[in-house]
C-alpha cells in the first residue's frame, strides 16, 4: 500500500491498473517540480542574460563566470550542495523546494544563453532605426526588440522544458517522491519492477509529447510575420 492505494497482484494488467493512481500522484509531483524549476530558470536566466550584457565589466564578468560554473557542474552536485550545505547555515528548505531550486539554477545557465542569442539576433540596424526615431530605450526594448526576439526564443525554451522534466528523477536522491521514486518504492515492495518502471516510461512519453505539442502550439500562435528567423 502506498498513498492509501492497495495493489492487486492477480495479473499484470490488474497490477498496472491498481498502481496507476499511485504513479499519477508521483507524476503530479514531477510536473510541479518541472514547472517550478522551469519558472525559476526563465526568471533567473533573464537576470543572468541582462547582467552578462551589462556595459560594466565588473558586472558582466562575474555573471559569466557564475553561469559557466553552473553549466559545467553536474545537477547532482548542485542538488547535494543545496540540500546538505544550506542547512548548515540555517537555511532549511523542504526537499521538493530544494530540488526545484536546483533544477531552476542549473537550467538558468542554459536559458540565459537562449535569451542572449535571441536578443542579439535582433540586428543593430533595428536599434539604430529606433534611435533615429527618438523612441525611448524602454519602448525600443519592449516593442522593437522583444517582439522580434520572442519567436526565436520560444522553440529553444521548449526544448529545455522537456529536458527539465526528464531531469526531475534526479530529485529522488534527496527523497522527493516524484514519479520514478514512487515506482521504485512500488517495485521494492512488490518485487515487480517491470510493470511500474514500464509505466513510468509510458507516462514520461505522454508528458513530454504533451509539453512539446504545447510549445509548438505556442510557437504557431506567436505573431512572426516578416521577422527574419534563421
Amino acid at each position, binding site marked *: 500500500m502506498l498513498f492509501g492505494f492497495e495493489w492487486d497482484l492477480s495479473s499484470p494488467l490488474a497490477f498496472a491498473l491498481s498502481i496507476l493512481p499511485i504513479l499519477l500522484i508521483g507524476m503530479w509531483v514531477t510536473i510541479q517540480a518541472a514547472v517550478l524549476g522551469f519558472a525559476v530558470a526563465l526568471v533567473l536566466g533573464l537576470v543572468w542574460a541582462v547582467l552578462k550584457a551589462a556595459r560594466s565589466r565588473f558586472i558582466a564578468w562575474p555573471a559569466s563566470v557564475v553561469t559557466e560554473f553552473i553549466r559545467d557542474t553536474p545537477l547532482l552536485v548542485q542538488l547535494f550542495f543545496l540540500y546538505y550545505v544550506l542547512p548548515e547555515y540555517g537555511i532549511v528548505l523542504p526537499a521538493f523546494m530544494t530540488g526545484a531550486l536546483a533544477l531552476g539554477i542549473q537550467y538558468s545557465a542554459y536559458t540565459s544563453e537562449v535569451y542572449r542569442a535571441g536578443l542579439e539576433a535582433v540586428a543593430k*540596424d533595428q536599434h*539604430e532605426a529606433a*534611435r*533615429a*526615431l*527618438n523612441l*525611448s530605450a524602454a519602448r525600443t526594448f519592449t516593442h522593437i526588440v522583444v517582439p522580434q526576439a520572442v519567436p526565436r526564443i520560444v522553440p529553444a525554451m521548449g526544448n529545455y522544458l522537456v529536458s527539465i522534466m526528464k531531469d526531475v528523477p534526479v530529485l529522488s536522491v534527496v527523497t522527493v517522491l516524484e514519479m520514478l521514486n514512487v515506482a521504485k518504492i512500488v517495485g521494492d515492495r512488490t518485487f515487480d519492477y517491470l510493470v511500474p518502471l514500464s509505466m513510468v516510461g509510458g507516462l514520461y512519453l505522454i508528458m513530454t509529447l504533451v509539453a512539446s505539442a504545447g510549445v509548438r502550439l505556442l510557437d504557431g500562435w506567436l505573431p512572426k*510575420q*516578416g*521577422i527574419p528567423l534563421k
Partner: protein
Amino acid sequence: MSDPIIKFDKVVKRFGDLTVLDALDFEVMRGEKVSIIGPSGSGKSTVLRILMTLEGIDGGLVTVGGEPLWHEPGPDGLRPASEAHLRKMRAQLGMVFQQFNLFPHMTVLRNITEAPVKVLGLSKADAKLRAEELLERVGLADQAQKYPHQLSGGQQQRVGIARALAMRPSILLFDEPTSALDPELVGEVLNVIGQLAEEHDLTMLLVTHEMRFAREISDRVCFFDQGQIREEGTPEELFSDPNEDRTREFLKAVLD
C-alpha cells in the same frame, strides 16, 4: 539661407587606429540640398551617423540649429551631451537608411505611426491621418496594412522615407538610399527624393553614388576623400570642371 543649420568645426572621428574624419570643417545652410560623394571609407556616412547621434565624436564641435549636438553647457563650459540633450536635438533630424531598417513585425502603417504616437504624443487617429498623407505622397496609399517583407525594396525604402518624414524633421539625412536596391527600383525612390528636394524649408543631406541624380537635385556637392572635403561646389562646377586631380579620377571611375 543665411545661418548654417549644420556646422562641423574641426570634427575628428576615429575607429580604433583609423581616423575617419580628420578635423573636418563642413557647413550646411538652412533649406540647402547637399550631396556628399566620394570613395567608400571616406567618411561620408559617418557624417550622417554623427548627425543622427548614432556615432559620437572624438574631437571638435558639431552644432545643429546653432546648438552643440554632442555637447551641452555645463558649469565649466561645454560637457558631453546627456541622453536628454541628445533626445531633444534628435527631434530636428530624420534619417533614411541604406538597408531601410523598417520594423519587420509591424505593418507599414505601424512603422510610420509608432514614433509620432510614442515620441511626439500624437493621437492614434492623427498619426494615422499623417501616415496616410505621407503614404499617398510616396505612392503607397494602398499598402498601409502590408508588412515590409511583402513589399519590394523600392517600396520599402519609400516607407522608410515616409517614416522619417512623419516626425517632421527640419533636416533629412539620406545614407545611400538606393545602394541596396535592384537597378530597376532605383528610379521610384529617386523620384520621391527629388520631389522632397523641391521643398523650400527642408534641409537635405544625401550620401549617394547616383551622380546624375546628385547633379540634378543638389545646391551643392561635396567630394569627400580621406576624412576631408577635398572639393566642393555647385553641381555644375564639380562635375563639369573639377579642380582637383583626385576628384577627376573619382568622377572618371564612377561615371564610366
